[in-house]
């Protein structure tokens, strides 16, 4: 794993209070280029809160975020997107009635000018889509296929492709295999692996030990809003990680 080098994103002693409740306390997180970090923890351990802090949806009460070594203060998810951080939501956020390519570029469609008017550049959308799907080794019949005609795994693949179409450096995936049939889980995990090879840092939140152990290089456990344990994947075991989730070392 020589590609693991550059530090893309670092969270230093992030603390988040909601009124009197402490959701996160002095939490640290690092993600490098080409690396996959698994984040595990029980419900309420602070996984979602941490991800929302990283994406700029919540402002941390204390602590700081470093993108490419530079401290940044995020006002909204738009800011984190501009810094190269993308979220893949559990509910996928795709428009079923539109083709794959138009979903990937939705809201950021390439256009061409004819006179003073701007028109959609369908040819470019198709070219960029084919190239991008090819790079991620995503197989679909055609980029013109409507998303509602795809299987759950293919939809997840399109959602991931969408998140990485604009030079994302870090992609956060919230339970990427939770809604999938068993035979499709493998394909999505393969996709995460090929994403890593392109140099993207991937953060996977998952309850499934199979997923964590198939794609992650490192795993960290949150327990009651604190860093509980962290390890290289090769130096731990399933039983140990399950123990961390329940607060046992």
């Amino acid at each position, binding site marked *: 794993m020589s590609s693991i080098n550059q530090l893309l994103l670092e969270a230093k002693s992030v603390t988040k209070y909601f009124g009197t409740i402490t959701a996160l306390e002095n939490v640290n997180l690092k993600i490098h280029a080409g690396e996959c970090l698994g984040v595990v923890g029980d419900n309420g351990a602070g996984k979602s809160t941490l991800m929302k802090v990283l994406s700029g949806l919540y402002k941390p009460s204390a602590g700081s975020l470093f993108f490419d070594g530079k401290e940044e203060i995020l006002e909204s998810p738009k800011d984190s997107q501009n810094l190269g951080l993308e979220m893949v939501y559990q*509910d996928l956020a*795709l*428009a079923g009635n539109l083709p794959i390519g*138009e979903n990937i570029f*939705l*809201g*950021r469609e390439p256009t061409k000018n004819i006179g003073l*008017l701007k028109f959609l550049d369908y040819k470019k959308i198709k070219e960029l889509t084919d190239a991008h799907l090819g790079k991620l080794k995503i197989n679909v019949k055609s980029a013109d*296929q*409507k998303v509602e005609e795809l299987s759950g795994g293919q939809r997840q693949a399109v959602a991931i492709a969408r998140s990485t179409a604009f030079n994302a450096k870090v992609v956060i995936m919230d339970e990427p295999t939770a809604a999938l049939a068993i035979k499709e889980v493998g394909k999505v995990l393969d996709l995460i692996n090929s994403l890593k090879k392109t140099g993207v840092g991937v953060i996977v939140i998952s309850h499934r030990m199979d997923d964590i152990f198939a794609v992650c290089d490192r795993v960290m456990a949150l327990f009651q809003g604190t860093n509980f344990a962290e390890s290289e994947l090769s130096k731990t075991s399933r039983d140990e990680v399950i123990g961390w989730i329940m607060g046992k070392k």
Partner: protein
Amino acid sequence: MENKDQEKESLYLKIMPYLEKYGILLLLVIMIVVMHFLQPDVFLSWRNVTNVFKQISWQSMLALGVFMVIVTAGIDLSVGSIMMLSLMILAIVAKAGAPWYIVVITPLIAGFLCGLFNGLGITLLRMPHPFIMTLGTLYIFRGTGNLISGGTPISGFTDEVRYLGHGRIDLTWLGLEKSQYLPVSLVLIAIVYIIFWIFMNKTRTGKWIYAIGGNPNAARASGINVNKILVIVYSLCGFLSGIGALILAGRTDSGYPNAGLQSELDAIAACIIGGASFFGGRGTVLGVFAGVMIMGILRNGLNLMDVSSFWQQVLIGSIIVLAVYIDVLRRDLGTRK
């Protein structure tokens, strides 16, 4: 076995998009052929064909506006009332002696503002469904139209004002007879439909209208300002209703209180017959045109055959139910659960 399934599926994938796009045109062609055989001397005569276009001219504008609204998974019940109010304002401005170019613009502005009112109401007042806002304005706009006119017809416009609804383009220079003219309203329908086809299919805003109908959350997550797009859509719908008012003014030479009564239902029917889905995100401009034509030809053909207008109601109603049932079947087949 699997190979055969795949072949079947890929054939299905190839045919479906075409059937979805052009199936409704097939129905239109079949209707024209059937009518031609039933009324061989009259139906396809120059006079009757231009008549059909003149009759559908203002409905086609309302239907196009309602279509865009339906694509966003919304509904606009007020288009008939917008048209009536715009028509009344036009009549009053005309009677006040304003020059024709002012008179011609007033219904367009009035329609646009009514649509803007709908759009702002739906988004700013956060109405649970556009049905409620536009049901309210259905009454508000028609009531306002009656208030400003005293509920009585106002007649008599100049030729310039009547041009779009009543004008004729002479074709004698093509060697045709004097009676074989082209109605200006037909040309207008063609121009407006082409512009809106380009708008819906070739621009980002058009694409976003479809995206909002498909999944508003996806549109929002993609950074699309959903409320802004909705306001644009309802405003354009009002604007098209204003064009409808201008055409109607030309056709009837009068502003009258019952103008466009229940025509919102005709407009919705044309969209549904034309393949627009009430679930949003689905339908084509070409389909709406076919829907308007099917309703126009049905009425015209049944009139030619002296069939009672009560039967026309029954038939149009049946076609709506059938068209939606086909949409339901299509969704079952086309969508993986």
